[in-house]
């Protein structure tokens, strides 16, 4: 059987080594490529849209390199997993950097946690939200296969996603606010946490993605 190809979109923002090596680790028959080449991305069987750092810089590079067009085409045609700032970039806009327009594939915005951020016991919570928190699955989805309800995943972010369409939420996480920690629509799935850094549960999610046919 021919190897399937997964492309990790490289637009110059941050370290893609982790996600590529995690995919390689779980995928027996998978060719992982890290590339910014539109043709290669569009030719791949499935695509990871990562992101790290500040949204303004990410969006500037996405637009400069034409990654917005690539993402739009991928989102219309094949399984795509957006991670962290990659997920945030799919929203309408972000409050970060005094407001940045994003790609608008999902309705809603990316909000600041607030300073101070106050927890349920009236305690002050640290920002960034950094560490292992529980992902509460709100739907059945092939990407949750084999992952226990409320499993812990690794998060690191100072802004969080809030969609205006509750029907698109695949998981939530509590951290002072209710974070829409995973969104889905058709063949697109997006997660705020880092599956590539989330040990067994995260590797399971990536493995599920590599087997996913894009149907929910």
């Amino acid at each position, binding site marked *: 059987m021919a190897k399937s190809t997964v492309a990790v979109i490289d637009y110059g923002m941050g370290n893609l080594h982790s996600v590529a090596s995690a995919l390689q680790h779980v995928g027996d028959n998978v060719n992982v490529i890290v590339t910014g080449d539109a043709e290669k991305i569009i030719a791949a069987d499935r695509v990871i849209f990562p992101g790290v750092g500040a949204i303004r810089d990410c969006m500037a590079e996405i637009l400069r390199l034409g990654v917005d067009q690539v993402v739009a085409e991928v989102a219309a045609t094949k399984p795509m997993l957006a991670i962290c700032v990659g997920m945030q970039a799919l929203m309408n806009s972000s409050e970060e950097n005094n407001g940045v327009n994003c790609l608008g594939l999902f309705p809603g915005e990316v909000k600041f946690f607030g300073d101070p951020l106050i927890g349920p016991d009236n305690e002050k919570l640290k920002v960034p939200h950094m560490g292992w928190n529980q992902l509460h699955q709100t739907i059945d989805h092939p990407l949750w296969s084999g992952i226990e309800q*409320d499993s812990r995943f690794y998060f690191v972010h100072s802004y969080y996603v809030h969609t205006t369409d509750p029907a698109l939420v695949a998981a939530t996480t509590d*951290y002072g606010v209710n974070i829409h920690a995973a969104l889905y629509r058709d063949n697109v799935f997006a997660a705020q946490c880092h599956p590539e850094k989330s040990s067994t549960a995260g590797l399971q999610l990536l493995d599920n993605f590599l087997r996913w046919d894009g149907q929910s």
Partner: protein
Amino acid sequence: MALAKRIIPCLDVENGRVVKGVNFVDIRDAGDPVEIAKRYNEQGADEITFLDITATHEGRDTTVHTVEKIAAEVFIPLTVGGGIRTVDDIRTMLNAGADKVAINSAAIHNPDFVKEAAERFGSQCIVVAIDAKQVSTEGEPLRWEIFTHGGRKPTGINAVEWAVKMVANGAGEILLTSMDGDGTKKGYDLPLNKAISDAVSVPVIASGGVGELQHLVDGVKQGGVDAVLAASIFHFGEHTVPEAKQFMAQQGIEVRL
């Protein structure tokens, strides 16, 4: 349901080998950082910190290869510290697979380095490591100063003020080592950890002095920290990471089990 407090085993590495020794029962090579990192990962460590104490340039190339090997097999966050002095050093470690870098003395020589690093790579991967010692005498209000050169050289910088300044410059996390506590097994410097945790908005990792599991609990409950780092209690097989987590959970601390 809340964010778990993190437990972070720390490896001190010199020329590609873990120093201070590590005793796992059925491990073939107790000095190999890759094997040790894998073992901690299997035990459920929440993160691994890798402190490079290599002095030579050649040795540092070895470190990069070691980080690459760990990152290819261990899928939890990896922080690399020691000898991070330039933007190129940071890029090299991130490209090798580190998720965060810890900046220590380079920040003291040039506080703007932290600002530059955070702007370039994002605060999420910039940890500022602070080595502090108590300098107030009995009867005085508590005061801590930053020390360099393994705690030998005072800088005159107030540790709490320094932490606040580093966060303002873009540090995403503080790794706080009490030089008074380090190696003593008497527990973390709780007032120091509390003072800095209260003063900054970002997570604080307590380090230096752990001798028993209760110290981890004290760090969280009394020191107010978000993560606890320890080396020797895990290395010498006195306690495993799951034991530490169970112990903390029994005392009402949220951990990832």
